[in-house]
């Protein structure tokens, strides 16, 4: 045996292995696409929810909160906030009541001055997310 | 390999053995034979088959040092883990 270990073979395995596992990943993605509609609560999506997602994004809520565990870890999880608070009204009341100058010495959510329509929309968006089947996560209602 | 003419090449003997063990495993399967005896028998056959493939097909019997035992170690680990798990339920 001339050489135990050649660069050409290492290269082949890099290209072949990468292509192979990327195709495998695509196959699993394809499978995911066929299963997700049973769990993603898409029936709840409507114009209000769409507006709510936009409000959520354009105020960078993810910059403090997590949603289904992803985001910043500065403020509570909101994927289950609808269940925790019990109603969209409670969510709206909380967002609307944030003091403009914060709470001395403590973390406080900014006052975003949302319109009634936007408030309703973001609450509906959070309600929609709470209906996503997240495999029983989070482990406790506290998020 | 070419010093003397053998009745069958070693790899052919191995092939026949592999087929034989496979048919027994299949027989256990189609008859739904269950329980520790049958389960561990077919598992044992599987490990034996694996070792034969490693030694004679992959040619590890001709290799010295740690590489000689790569397949054996894998089979031992996998066999142990499967045995531990199945032992509790059979």
């Amino acid at each position: 045996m001339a050489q135990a270990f050649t660069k050409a073979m290492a290269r082949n395995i890099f290209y072949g292995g990468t292509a192979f596992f990327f195709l495998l990943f695509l196959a699993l993605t394809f499978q995911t696409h066929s299963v997700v509609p049973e769990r993603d609560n898409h029936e709840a999506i409507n114009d209000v929810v769409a507006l709510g997602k936009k409000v959520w994004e354009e105020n960078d809520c993810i910059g403090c909160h997590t949603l289904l565990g992803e985001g910043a870890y500065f403020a509570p999880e909101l994927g289950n906030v609808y269940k925790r608070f019990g109603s969209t009204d409670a969510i709206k009341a909380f967002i609307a009541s944030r003091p403009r100058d914060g709470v001395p010495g403590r973390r406080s959510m900014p006052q975003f001055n949302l319109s009634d329509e936007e408030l309703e929309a973001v609450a509906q968006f959070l309600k929609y997310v709470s209906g996503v089947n997240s495999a029983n996560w989070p482990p406790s209602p506290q998020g | 390999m070419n010093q003397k003419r053998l009745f069958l090449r070693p790899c052919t003997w191995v092939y026949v053995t592999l087929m034989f063990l496979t048919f027994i495993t299949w027989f256990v399967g189609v008859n739904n034979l269950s329980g520790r005896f049958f389960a561990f028998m077919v598992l044992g056959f599987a490990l034996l088959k694996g070792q034969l493939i490693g030694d004679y097909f992959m040619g590890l019997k001709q290799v010295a040092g740690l590489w000689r035992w790569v397949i054996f170690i894998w089979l031992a680990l996998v066999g142990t883990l499967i045995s531990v798990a199945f032992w509790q339920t059979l």
Partner: protein
Amino acid sequence: MTGMEKNRWPPGDLVIWIFIMAELLVFGVFFAAYAFTRTNHVELFNTYQLTLDRNAALINTVALITSSYFVVRAVAAIRVDDSRRCFHWLLAALAMGLLFLVVKGAEYHHHFSQGINLNTNTFYMFYLSLTFFHFLHVILGMIILLAVALKARSGGYSAAEHTGVETGASYWHMVDLVWMVLFPLVYVMR
């Protein structure tokens, strides 16, 4: 290769062996995960195991072993500088691989037509994941063998230099080896 003095390295390029070890590690973990998950769902696993086609699995096992054997003969042929026979043995091995794909494909067709997918239940999750992952390896192995076969036909290997044949062969035997454990574990043991 007189059989007396031992080699330092396994046949083929050493990189393929690193790759083989990685693959075996993944399959090993998958097998162990199957076995230990089963301990919590014995009823479920035993029930759905009965829906698998053991005859198809037998044909597939025979196909892979035979294919592996043909590959061994292909390596033996090139070691005595016989490119033509090496090529023919590889073709035969590929035919066996194709048989595996057809039979396994028919099994999948049967399952999918019943609406079974990875999310149906834990047993099918494992059955489909393990066999499909292996299925892809058969395809990859066949692509490698085909490349080796074509090069053999054009006289790209010789008794002196046939690392490529051994490399492809080692990978193919690994695909066979994994199935040797998969077959009893998923189809038979209960």
